[in-house]
């Protein structure tokens, strides 16, 4: 028996060891590049700020306390509201799209492909493209002027509206895909059963389709809400300096402001919010999907 065979035989004889062997490479990666940096950040967020960036030895809560300054709470509130808004708009726009794709017959694969297509281009490039669309001399203004629908240039870029358009655009596929997945595996005979039991199309949707697609809806909301909460690129490029989100704040602290402890503290506060969102998700999922998942 060669050494390799012996090692494999040893592994097969111990299911526990097998699991660890499968976990090891990915686990190593996550520990080194996720857990370690996050622990460093956690430590930094409790240390006094150094004069030239970095940290000085010691323990302080000042960075967390500082975050509760109205200035930053304002940013937090805006971030939260925009993320919620973005999630709701994505849901309202995305559900019908997912529903249409599922019923799309032979167009289904093409439509799915179109939803995923934007991912072929970098998000940064696509956001720049939106600047070209929305700026004062951009396509939208030009067309509206030419069609005579407006007399003077509309200010679209660098407004909350532009940020919201960008956020929704960026995250819409993450809403559509999970809803599509849950609608797609919905057993058609359940819809027929509802119909033959007397449910008209609207009642059928409300009592069968919607509840059974809830896991997809919740997953979609989470996939939109969490990254929206942490996004900074969209608000930076489409919102200008006036529309700061938490992501921009954190990014500034780590780059230009060189205040790593405060940036870390802000990050952990966002993380706490995300954690809260996940807890709500799990609770809702237990209530709606509990019966079907068993």
């Amino acid at each position, binding site marked *: 028996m060669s050494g390799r065979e012996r090692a494999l035989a040893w592994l097969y004889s111990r299911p526990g060891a097998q699991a660890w062997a499968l976990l090891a490479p990915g686990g190593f990666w996550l520990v080194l590049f996720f857990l370690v940096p996050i622990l460093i950040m956690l430590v930094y967020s409790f240390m006094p700020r150094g004069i030239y960036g970095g940290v000085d030895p010691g323990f302080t809560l000042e960075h967390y306390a500082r975050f509760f300054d109205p200035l930053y709470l304002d940013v937090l509130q805006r971030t939260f509201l925009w993320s919620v808004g973005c999630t709701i708009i994505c849901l309202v726009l995305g559900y019908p799209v997912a529903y249409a794709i599922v019923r799309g017959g032979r167009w289904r694969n093409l439509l799915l492909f179109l939803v995923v297509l934007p991912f072929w281009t970098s998000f940064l490039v696509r956001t720049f493209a939106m600047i070209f669309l929305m700026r004062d001399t951009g396509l939208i203004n030009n067309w509206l002027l030419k069609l005579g629908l407006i007399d003077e240039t509309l200010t679209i870029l660098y407004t909350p509206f532009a940020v919201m358009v960008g956020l929704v655009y960026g995250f819409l596929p993450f809403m559509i895909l999970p809803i599509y997945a849950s609608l797609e595996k919905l057993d058609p*005979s359940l819809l027929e059963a509802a119909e*033959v*039991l*007397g*449910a*008209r199309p609207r009642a059928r949707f409300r*009592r069968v389709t919607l509840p*059974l697609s809830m896991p997809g809806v919740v997953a979609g909301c989470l996939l939109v809400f969490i990254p929206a909460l942490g996004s900074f690129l969209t608000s930076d490029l489409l919102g200008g300096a006036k529309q700061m989100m938490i992501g921009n704040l954190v990014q500034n602290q780590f780059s230009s402001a060189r205040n790593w402890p405060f940036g870390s503290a802000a990050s952990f506060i966002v993380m706490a919010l995300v954690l809260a969102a996940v807890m709500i998700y799990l609770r809702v999922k237990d209530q709606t999907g509990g*019966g079907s*998942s068993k």
Partner: protein
Amino acid sequence: MVQLSKVSKSFGELKAVDQVSFDIVRGEFFSILGPSGCGKTTTLRLLAGFEQPDEDGGEVRLLGQTVNKKRPYERQVAMVFQNYALFPHLTVARNVSFGLEQRKTPKQEIGDRVRRALEMVRLKPDVFLNRMPGQLSGGQRQRVALARALVLEPAILLLDEPLGAIDLKLRKEMQLELKALNKQLGTTFVYVTHDQEEALTMSDRIAVMDNARVAQLGTPAEIYENPRTAFVAKFIGESNFFEGRVVESSNGQCRVQRTGQGSFQVPGHPSISHGGSVRIAVRPEWMDVFRPDAVPPGENALIGTIRDIIYLGETMHVIVTVPEAGDVTVALRNEGQLIKPLQWKKGDTAAVAWLPEDCQILEED
């Protein structure tokens, strides 16, 4: 009660149901029997309203009303689905009450009726009301699905192979229960199945479907004992087939010269004419095996060699290879092989014999 007149349904080029007509009376247990792809499920879906007949595809009438264009929720039918189609997110109670809620039944009445429906299908309401479908066994789901349909007290209940997925013993039990419910409630049952035994056991009448058409319609005894075509004879039970040409006919008896050697007598039949060709089927249990020189007078007999003897418990199958007729199966009652063993063994020359009146004369498919 339920009438189809010359109903046709096509999916693109494919004719799924072709000029199907039948008339089901109130309280009848009516089965649609056929192999997969014969159009039986499409026929049921036409009754439920999930499919609509072609533009010039005849007429579907329920309770005296033409319903060709009516949606399922506008028809007074209930249905039990093949895979039960219970709502996985609702409790047993909510599943059963679903139809009542859609029909705006008063709240207090719903509770009572749900309990009664569960009792009818022999599920204890106190045990099952709050269970989720995922926590039930296949047989229990089947019963819930049945309760969900019966709670509406429908005039017509459509059943799409409802017993296909449960094990044999339970299936036999449910067959008898369904039949009893049909008689007890007076509900008209339209039952789709591919299981011939099931259809024979339960039905008042059976429509055997083949290739989008009704091949034969009749009582179980008519279908089994007098199959109209080779397809019906083959699909329901086992049959041995013989062909030949009529060479002599007198007094309601015809003599048929078999393709190959030998001849046999068949009773007269409107489809038989002198000189014409005839195809007959004979059930294995209506045949017997004799020594070639000991065939009782008046019986048809063909000589062959015993190829195999198969022990089946209740019966013994003796398979006799007859030249140019292939294998002929004869089913003999097993009178106890330990006490009174069969006198035949493989390789024996033997005559398979049957009475002329046991010939089933077949029409073209």
